[in-house]
C-alpha cells in the first residue's frame, strides 16, 4: 500500500514537473522576447524568435527520452554486437560467425520463420472472415467484442489459459485438459502437446493467433464498412453472387488495410517472447529469437555481445517494414 501511495505521489510530482517545465519555459520565453502590446520591428523580430524556439521547447522532453530510450540503444546495440561478452574488446563479426554456427540459433531462426509464415496469415484470415460474417447479423457487435477480448489479456495470462487446455495426464486417467479430453473422446491417445518437437511451435502459435485475430477483425471490419456502397450495388446489378462480391469487389479494395494488419502482426511475431518463455522456455526445439536473446542476456552472468548480436538480427528483419511504414506516412503527409 505504502508503495502505491509513493507511486501516486511520484506520478503527481512527475505531472507537476512536466507542467512546470512547459509553463515555465514558455513564460520565460515570453518574458525574454515580448511581443504582446508592442508594435514595429522589435515586436516582429521577437515574434520570429519565439516562433523559432517554441517548437523545440514543446519537443524537448519527448526528444530527450526518445533519444535515451530508443535511438541511443539502437546504435549501442550495434556497437555491442561487435564486442565481447562484457562489451570491452572489439571482436569484429565473431559474434555473428558464432551465431550462424550455433544450432540453437539456427533452430530459432527456423522457428521464427514458421511463426512469420503462419501467425500473420492465420490472424488476418480469421479476422477477415469474422469481420465479413459479423457485418451481417444483428448480434455482430456482441460477437466481435467477445472475439476481441483476448487482446486485453497478457501473453503470460494467455499462456496459462492455453497450458491448461494442453494439459496432459497419463493415458487411462481422466484428462482435465480440453484438447486431450477431445482427443480421447474420439478414441485417440493423449499427448503432451507442448513437448512434441516441431508441432509444439504450432501449439504456441495458436495462442498468438487467438490474441491477434481480434485486432485484425477490428481493423478489417472498419475497412469493410468503408467500402463505397456503389461498387457493391453495381456488382449486384451485374449479377455477381455473394462470394464473387467478397473476393472480387471487396478484397481488392482492402489490400492496403490487409497489408497494414499483416505487417503489424509480423512485427509482433518477431518480438514474441512471453509466450515461449512461459510455455516451454525454448525447450523441445521451440526456441525463438527474442527468447534466445533474453537468455543470452543473463546466461552465465550475461553475454552482452551475443545478446546484442541476436537483437541486431531481429532489428534487420524489422527494417523492411520500417521503411515501408515511413514511406506510407510520408505519402500520406504529402496528401494533406
Amino acid at each position, binding site marked *: 500500500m505504502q*508503495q502505491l501511495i509513493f*507511486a*501516486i505521489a*511520484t506520478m503527481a510530482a*512527475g*505531472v507537476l514537473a*512536466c507542467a512546470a517545465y512547459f509553463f515555465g519555459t*514558455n513564460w520565460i520565453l515570453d518574458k525574454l522576447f515580448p511581443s504582446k502590446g508592442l508594435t514595429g520591428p522589435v515586436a516582429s523580430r521577437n515574434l520570429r524568435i519565439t*516562433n523559432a524556439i517554441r517548437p523545440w521547447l*514543446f*519537443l524537448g522532453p*519527448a526528444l530527450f*527520452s*526518445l533519444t535515451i*530510450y*530508443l535511438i541511443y*540503444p539502437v546504435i*549501442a*546495440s550495434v556497437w*555491442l554486437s561487435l564486442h565481447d561478452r562484457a562489451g570491452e574488446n572489439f571482436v569484429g563479426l565473431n559474434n555473428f560467425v558464432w551465431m550462424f554456427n550455433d544450432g540453437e540459433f539456427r533452430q530459432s531462426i527456423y522457428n521464427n520463420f514458421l511463426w512469420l509464415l503462419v501467425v500473420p496469415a492465420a490472424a488476418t484470415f*480469421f479476422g477477415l472472415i469474422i469481420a465479413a*460474417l459479423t457485418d*451481417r447479423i444483428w448480434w455482430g457487435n456482441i*460477437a466481435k*467484442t*467477445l472475439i476481441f*477480448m483476448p487482446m*486485453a489479456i*497478457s501473453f503470460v*495470462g494467455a*499462456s496459462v*489459459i492455453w*497450458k*491448461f487446455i494442453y494439459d496432459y495426464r497419463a493415458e487411462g486417467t481422466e484428462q*482435465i485438459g*480440453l484438447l486431450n479430453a477431445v482427443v480421447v473422446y474420439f478414441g485417440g491417445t493423449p499427448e503432451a502437446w507442448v513437448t512434441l518437437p516441431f508441432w509444439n511451435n504450432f501449439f504456441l502459435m495458436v495462442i498468438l493467433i*487467438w490474441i491477434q485475430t481480434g*485486432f485484425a477483425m*477490428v481493423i478489417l471490419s472498419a475497412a469493410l464498412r468503408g467500402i463505397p456502397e456503389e461498387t*457493391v450495388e453495381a456488382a449486384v446489378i451485374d449479377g455477381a453472387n455473394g462470394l464473387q*462480391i467478397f473476393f472480387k469487389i471487396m478484397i481488392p479494395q482492402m489490400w492496403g*488495410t490487409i*497489408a*497494414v494488419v499483416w505487417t503489424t502482426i509480423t*512485427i509482433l511475431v*518477431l518480438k514474441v*517472447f512471453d509466450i515461449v518463455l*512461459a510455455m516451454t522456455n525454448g525447450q523441445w526445439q521451440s526456441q525463438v529469437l527474442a527468447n534466445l536473446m533474453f537468455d543470452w*542476456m543473463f546466461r552465465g552472468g550475461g553475454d552482452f555481445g551475443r*545478446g546484442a548480436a541476436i*537483437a*541486431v538480427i531481429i*532489428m534487420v528483419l524489422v527494417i523492411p*517494414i*520500417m521503411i515501408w*511504414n515511413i514511406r*506510407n*506516412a*510520408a*505519402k500520406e503527409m504529402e496528401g494533406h
Partner: protein
Amino acid sequence: MIASSRSPLVWVVHLSVILLVVLWTLPTAGLLISSLRDKDQLAVSGWWTALSTSSQNLTGRAASPEAQVERDGKFVIAGNLLEGGDAKVSAFGFRPLQPSAFKAGALADIGDGQTLTVKDDGSYEIVSPTRMEGTRGQRIFYTAAVPPRFTFDNYREVMRAAGIGASFINSLTVAIPATIIPILVAAFAAYALAWMKFPGRAILIAVVVGLLVVPLQMSLIPLLKLYNGVGAVLGVPAKTYVGIWLAHMGFGLPLAIYLLRNYMAGLPREIMESARVDGASDFDIFVKIILPLSFPALASFSIFQFLWTWNDLLVAMVFLGTGNNELVLTGRLVNLLGSRGGNWEILTASAFITIIVPLIVFFTLQRYLVRGLLAGSVKGG
C-alpha cells in the same frame, strides 16, 4: 448485405459466428470456471464437468468398536461416512476387490453373524449379536455421487500464500505512473509536429514512425548497462520503480506521439487561425483549445499504454527487481508456472487475478480502444 434475403445462408452465417465465438471464449471460460472449483475436484475432472455430479470411489472407516452401544440385546456401531456432506452413496462393499458389491440400503453379511448396511445418505450401521472386539473400525468402500462444489478458497489461497496480493499492488505501482506521465510529454510534442512550422519537422515525423517498430530487444542491453552505470555513479540501486516508469515512457512515446499527432492534425485549421487572430500564442492555443479537443485520442493512448504496462513481462524482468515488493503479476505468474506447474487451482486463480483488471478496462472502455487502433493503423486503405 449480401446474404440477407436468402435464409439458408443466413443460418450458416449465424452458426459459423456462434462456433467462432465459442472457440474464442471457451479458453477463458475454462480458466474462470476452474478457478472457482474445489481443488480436489479440479484435479480429477475436466472443468466442463463442473456442473454435473461426479461419481467417486471412496474409502471410509467405521467408528471403532469402543463406540458400540447395546440395543435390544444386539451391539450396534452407527455413524455417517459423509459427515454431513451432500453427496449420495449409491453402492458399498467391505472388500477392497468388490468395493461396490451392495446397493445402498442393502444388508451385507460381513461374517461372524455381523451385518453392515450403508444408506444412501451415508449413514451406516454394523449390527452384531455379540460384543465386538478390537480397536480399529471396519473399513467400508463406497461409491458416492459428489455434487459440484464452487468456492473462493483458491482465490483466498493465492492472495495470501502465493504472493499474488503483493504483486497486484506492484503491478498497479508500475502501470499507473507509466500511463499518466508520458501523456503530457507526448501531447506537447504531437502539437509541435502537427501545427508548428520549423525546419526538420518532416524528418522528425519520419523518425517517430520509424521508432514505432523498433524491437524492444534492441534497447534492453544498452539500457541495462546504462542503468547499472547510473546506479553505480549515484549510489542507488539500478532496478527501481522510477527506472521502469521512465523506460515505459520512452518505449510508449512513439505510439503516443504518432496517435496524438494524427488526431491533432485532423482538427479544423479555422479554430486555430481564429484564435491566433485574437492574439493567442501557440501555448495558449494548445492548452485551452487543442488539449480539451484531443480527449478521445488521449483516452485511446492511455488505454493502450495501461494495457501494455500492466501486461508487460519483458521490461519488468529486465528493469525491476524480483523482491516481494517489486515482482509484478506477470512475473509472479511465470514463477508459479515453474514452481507450482501442476497445481491448477493456484495457476487458474492467479491467472484470473492478473487478467481481471485489463478485462474490466477492456469492457468499459472498448470504444476508445477501437478508435485508437483504427487511428494507429489504418493508412492507405
